[in-house]
């Protein structure tokens, strides 16, 4: 195995080119576990952390561009980012321990393509877009379209994610991510739910995106759930419709961490709670 730490995107692309056994290293919290267990035996590891911009959180057209090597801890410490996208930052902050937070990244969580990844439903609800670089230049792909199934992504050979854009959104907007785990900390989502919404001047929902994780082979955007909220005040009836839409959309499996029925039910419960938190934040209140 070789280790490369290129200083530019061009050099990273060159290091990855024609190397089917190459792996990209950002935070390494998944990659090093796979290396140790010999799930992967790469010819070359390309560390992207020394590339200019990979550790940056930059304002961009009212949104935020987050470099592929920015850790969860760095996001949590960025007050302006937390103020704009508290749900995304909290979702990333749920991944692993303090030690893992010191290294783990949004881009890595996305590329690991676990159906239960915590940050991914929050990014999908946020309408986040991944900037992918590779031998054919740069392209933007919605985060929802990156995972293709457990462990599989839409990235072509030689490509990697350089940054994630959390887009601009209007006034009176808020987001939230909740997951169910049987413990209080350090566990993998049994169900995860992200909600991002905007309110109009009369506190009716003017825009909404609702996502679910861990209830299908990949994260899902639940259009019916968003429709259930639109143009409505978040009263019990609206929340009931939201919960029903999420429970219906969920396509979970039975496993040791939860049954199909339980996961469907919890998908609805989490959606209700996340929507209430997102709406509270949209009103400028703490939640």
């Amino acid at each position, binding site marked *: 195995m070789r*280790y490369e730490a290129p200083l530019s995107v061009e050099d990273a692309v060159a290091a990855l080119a024609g190397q089917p056994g190459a792996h990209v290293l950002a935070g390494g919290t998944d990659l090093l576990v796979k290396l*140790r267990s010999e799930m992967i035996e790469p010819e070359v590891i390309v560390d992207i952390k020394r590339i200019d911009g990979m550790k940056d959180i930059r304002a961009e057209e009212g949104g935020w561009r987050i470099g592929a090597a920015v850790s969860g801890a760095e996001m949590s410490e960025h007050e302006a980012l937390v103020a704009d996208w508290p749900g995304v930052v909290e979702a990333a902050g749920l991944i692993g*321990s*303090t*030690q893992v937070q010191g290294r783990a990244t949004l881009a890595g969580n996305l590329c690991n393509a676990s159906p239960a990844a915590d940050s991914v439903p929050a990014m999908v609800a946020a309408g986040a877009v991944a900037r992918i670089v590779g031998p054919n230049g740069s392209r933007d792909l919605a985060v929802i379209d990156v995972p293709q199934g457990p462990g599989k992504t839409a990235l072509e050979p030689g490509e990697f994610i350089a940054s994630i854009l959390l887009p601009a959104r209007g006034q009176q907007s808020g987001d939230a991510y909740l997951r169910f785990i049987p413990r209080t900390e350090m566990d993998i989502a049994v169900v995860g739910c992200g909600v991002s919404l905007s309110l109009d001047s009369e506190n009716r929902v003017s825009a909404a995106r609702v996502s679910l994780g861990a209830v299908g082979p990949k994260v899902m955007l639940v259009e019916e759930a968003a429709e259930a909220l639109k143009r409505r005040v978040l009263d019990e009836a609206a929340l009931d419709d939201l919960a029903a839409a999420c429970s219906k959309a969920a396509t979970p499996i039975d496993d040791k961490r939860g049954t199909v029925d339980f996961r469907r039910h919890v998908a609805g419960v989490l959606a209700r709670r996340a929507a209430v938190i997102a709406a509270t934040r949209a009103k400028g209140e703490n939640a």
Partner: protein
Amino acid sequence: MSQIHVTTKINGDETEFLCEPEDTLLDVLRDRLGLTGTKEGCGTGDCGACSVAVDGRLVCSCLMLGAEAEGREVATIEGMAKGDQLHPLQRKFIEMAALQCGICTPGILVAAQSLLERNPDPSEEEVRYWLAGNLCRCTGYDKIIRAVMETAADMRRAS
């Protein structure tokens, strides 16, 4: 296979080492530099026994390659005491018997130090969450949490 030459700073000292590309920082610390205070527990980032600070950030040294340490500053348990002068956390852990077998202790001390540098007045809940990635199979955690809380209080009084 060619070894990688790495220049780094460990506990304030300029340090150079050669490592294999697949060596973790933990492998390098223990097997190449003889800094065996950092322990290997799980090797997969779950137990926190290998905790070190890199550029002031708490990480698991088992989840980082040695080669990544190039140009970084690494702080390990060996740098915690100043000569014969134990760090207040170390003194308090002994005084309150906040350890039994001791294998998790270096990682817990490094992690607790990292917390107190950021937050000199943490709540019990904050201490428990911060240390959630440091597993101890002996103590049941209670003495550890109390020792960290009391050290924080002592350090606040002293400052």
